[in-house]
């Protein structure tokens, strides 16, 4: 693991990175509040502690040309790619007007205009799909970088292996970030795999691999910029393992009693949002007070969007009884 020294980002970029991280953080705050009010729908998957990964990685993409396949702890990437709060909340709450018409929820939606393609629950299933998305453009002579994610647990799924090997053989511009947050549900790293770094798998696919501190947003960003460059040069996929800690339960129903307290305390010191606030304050890029104001504003916006979404009715029942096939759909 290497640590970033001087900033690779302009002050504007730094402020933007912080803003997206705060959005990711306050999204969690807002959803947690909703969960406690009993108004959330479906599992609430916190990304507390993972903000630097989802924001720093997506931020390295060209969002007009590249494409993002986020997983369940990557809400930050949705913001980076320009998703509106309203749309996000409608999808999460499966309300009328959501892009998925209530057929599915959480971050599973796709928004082709914004170049965001959500996940399915089956871990790893979207990695070959992301590879194929880039393959299509490769056939057209275009380089479209696909960025996607998998957990330290999900990395053991067979499809991950097939997709990485396939992408490397075809030198596809795919970036896979293995978000090692120490646990897969209740299962610690030690019971999930026996290698030292999950990026050690890269050599077995003949691709570039690296393990980095996932709490350092600029390091994540810089590492991903390198990976994006490599992909654009036609040098194929990159595997990046980010080390973080899942600071809450698997989902909010889980009290994560199985996580040693000391581990949480130790990682709390490396909180990606707090450390970045402190850093920008020190660098005089943004003061602590400004950050606090920004943060409060963001949370207020989130809650307002949630309230608007909650005012929406559930989708009409008939939405469930159509569109199983495109041929039933207008223009299908």
């Amino acid at each position, binding site marked *: 693991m290497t640590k970033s020294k001087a900033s690779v980002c302009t002050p504007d970029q730094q402020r933007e990175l912080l803003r997206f991280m705060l959005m990711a953080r306050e999204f969690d705050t807002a959803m947690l509040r909703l969960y406690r009010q009993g108004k959330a729908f479906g599992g609430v998957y916190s990304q507390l502690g993972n903000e630097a990964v989802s924001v720093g990685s997506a931020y390295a993409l060209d969002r007009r040309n590249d494409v993002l396949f986020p997983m369940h702890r990557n809400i930050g990437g949705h913001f980076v790619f320009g998703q509106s709060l309203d749309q996000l909340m409608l999808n999460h709450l499966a309300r009328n007007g959501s892009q998925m018409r209530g057929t599915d929820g959480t971050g599973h939606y796709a928004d082709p205009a914004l170049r965001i393609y959500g996940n399915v*629950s*089956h871990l790893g299933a979207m990695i070959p799909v992301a590879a194929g998305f880039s393959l299509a453009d490769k056939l057209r002579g275009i380089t479209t970088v696909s960025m996607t994610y998998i957990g330290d*647990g999900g990395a053991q799924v067979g499809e991950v292996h097939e997709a990485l090997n396939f992408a490397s053989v075809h030198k596809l511009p795919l970036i896979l970030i293995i978000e090692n947050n120490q646990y897969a*549900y209740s299962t610690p790293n030690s019971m999930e795999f026996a290698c030292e770094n999950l990026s050690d798998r890269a050599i077995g696919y003949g691709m570039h691999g690296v393990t980095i501190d996932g709490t350092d947003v600029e390091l994540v960003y810089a590492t991903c910029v390198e990976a994006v460059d490599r992909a654009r040069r036609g040098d194929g996929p990159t595997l990046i393992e980010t080390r973080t800690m899942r600071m809450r339960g698997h989902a909010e129903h889980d009290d994560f009693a199985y996580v040693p307290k000391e581990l949480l305390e130790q990682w709390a010191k490396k909180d990606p949002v707090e450390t970045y606030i402190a850093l920008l304050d020190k660098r005089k890029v943004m003061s602590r007070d400004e950050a606090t104001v920004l943060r409060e504003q963001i949370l207020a916006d989130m809650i307002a969007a949630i309230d608007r979404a909650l005012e929406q009715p559930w*989708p009409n029942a008939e939405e*469930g009884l159509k569109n199983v096939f495109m041929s039933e759909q207008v223009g299908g």
Partner: protein
Amino acid sequence: MIMTYLEAIADAIRVEMRTDKSVFMIGEDIGAYGGAFKLTKGFLDEFGPQRIIDAPISESAIIGAAIGAALNGMRPIAEMQFMDFVTNGFNQLVTVAGTTAYRWSIPVPMVVRGPSGGGVGANPFHSRNSEAWFVHATGLKVVCPAFPDDAKGLMAASIRDNDPVVFFEHKGLYRKIKGEVPEGEYIVPLGKARTVREGKHCSVIAYGSAVHMALEAAAMLEKEGIDVEIVDIRTLVPFDEDSVLASVRKTGRAVVAHEAVMTAGFGGEIAARIADKAFQWLDAPVKRVAAFDSPTPFAPTLEKAVLPNAEVLAHTIRRVCSF
């Protein structure tokens, strides 16, 4: 003893593990955490990590390892955290487990089990009812209990069976359905239907959550003077055709119900057999009540519209009875 459906399944496994050292469990988060639905709560303490094996997220490896252990004389129980994820280990089940007895005459005594079904606001990937795939695969037994006592007895029978069994637990019944369950060793043999309600006007053939839907419908219709017989087939493979036909010959009418999507579901098989083998006894066409042919949607309004329910079933029974 009064137990929930979930407790009954756990009880069966516990009893079998106590009496047979060759039984062990393998799955994701089943150890210290006790499983996503807490079905194996306390198991790690009682049986230790050698027999309650927490596995990586690798459904093919989990099912494959269970097959290998079964070939080597053990009786593994593999948990799918949600039955939906069996699609990731599908090849192991249908290609390896389902063909071994036929090809090798070696027993593969294993159970693949987990929560299936919808109606609880999960999403399209946590709600599937996929039992028909395994019925059609050949070489796999398929069990779908509806009540706590059956869940216990059928689980015990599945563990003791020398063939691979795919055991579908309906997650909506886990804590909702309670009932008297015999203590200690208790076996309900595979392949025997259970007449859950005697009636004379129409037979409802169902399994899993649809049995409760049928009970609800029967209660509604009772007031209207329609007396419904409900046959819970309990196991799809082996299928107790005789009991089903006997009921239909008695009532002269049949409605088949399941929660899985209608098309190419097991209900088609049941209806086809009734229509063929009870042809002369039928006073009305055999109708089916099942889910709309779509993924199970997330929003409650949509899910309610897609899944079958007691009203639709009652309506269908009425139509059949007034045919």
